[in-house]
């Protein structure tokens, strides 16, 4: 691609020079976000049994509410959790930044499932302020496993 553009430029040297005259300097603006409004977490549902059914949003919602209620009561269940994506047994959620530590603690320490059924629990695969980093970390786990 780069070679192509070079040759086209070379064909029209006059156009390139004209283009140079009108190119202005770029303004650099810097912004620091100290307190992002939301934090994100990457969760996986683990279970005693061998086969877990694939998750859907409703199951995720009910498990998360149960975990928060068990740990923090009504205030915990009042924490606004947005479910961003559900894939297989994993899911991504978004919570307000100030609630991240409470949510991660609640999810990590929860064991659910009825008496005669298999127990389930949440494994927190990652959490942080930036979603892009979380998503990028997915690949990191696979590097050392094989």
């Amino acid at each position, binding site marked *: 691609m780069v070679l192509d553009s070079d040759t086209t430029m070379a064909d029209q040297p006059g156009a390139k020079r004209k283009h140079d005259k009108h190119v202005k300097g770029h303004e650099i603006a810097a912004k620091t976000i100290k307190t992002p*409004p939301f934090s994100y977490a990457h969760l996986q549902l683990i279970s005693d049994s061998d086969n877990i059914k694939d998750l859907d949003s409703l199951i995720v919602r009910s498990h998360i509410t149960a975990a928060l209620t068990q740990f923090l009561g*009504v*205030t915990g*269940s*009042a*924490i*606004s959790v947005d479910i961003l994506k559900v894939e297989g047994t994993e899911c991504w959620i978004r919570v*307000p930044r*100030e609630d991240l530590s409470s949510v991660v603690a609640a999810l990590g320490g929860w064991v659910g499932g009825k008496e005669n059924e298999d127990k389930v629990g949440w494994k927190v695969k990652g959490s942080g302020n930036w979603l892009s980093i979380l998503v990028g970390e997915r690949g990191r786990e696979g590097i050392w496993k094989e």
Partner: protein
Amino acid sequence: MLYDLNVPWDPSQSPLHLQRTISFLSELGYDTLALNHTLATLTPQIMNPIPLVPPFTIPKKTVLLRRCTLIIADPTQNHRLPALAAAYDIVALRPTTEKAFLAACLSLDSHSLISLDLTQRFPFHFKPKPFMTAINRGIRFEICYSQSMDVSGDGGNARRNFIGNVVAIVRATRGRGLVVSSGAISVLGCRAPADVLNLLGVWGLQRERGVESLGVNPRGVVINEGLRRTSFRGVVDVIEGGEKIVKENGKGGGEKEKRMQGTPQNGVGKKQKGKRIAEETNGGATPQLSKRAAKKANGDLTTTTHRRYPQQATSYTRRMKEKIW
């Protein structure tokens, strides 16, 4: 001085019930209460159904104001807010959609309280920007603490939604610009100020901000609404009281006397228009001294101004002019 700006009032309410609520709130320490009439639709003729004088006795130090909360969903409709503002002492808005909420925060003008129904789940997140813009404009956000004890109905969702919304509002505003009121339909919903502060402290409202939201902020709302109704753009305030009847202007004095007797014995007396009755000029023989100048000439010191709200100080220049310290 503590304020409770939301004591729900209903035409079908039993007056005895309301009296009990008012006297209990007064015992807990709230001096100024506002009876709140919630309106969803407007009648063609806007009238204030809350009686000026309550049909029962209220504790002596209690001041009752009349407030209305208008539920709006569509800001483009004409809600005749100025007419509403003329009929009630305080006007609050209850937006139910994001569009209405943004309009109430940024553009609409006749209200000074935004009272969201915190037991509902809102389809939008509470961002700091519209909240702080509204607060800088002078609009305050109301939190009714009795809704947190609403265990009835809706499967306990009311409490959960209330807590989530309160936490979000406190975070978006950092605790500033809030007004806390009871919203109590019966005595069971009323709590003492210390209890209210503790409760809201659990959900993130710092103690100092909580104290402000019980005293300073509602006082600001009450005074601003009063100023809006009795003065021209907050600059010219109509003074009354302390006027002696001048013997020269017999006719004008008679009129003034009548006006003073006609003053309703309302605790705050905000409802009067307070415009001076136009004086009829006398024969033309006597020089046209203004009444004020005439009184001053008589050596009458009662021409000092009485502010309607005693906490407000008179301006420095005025004090210099009248030599009061």
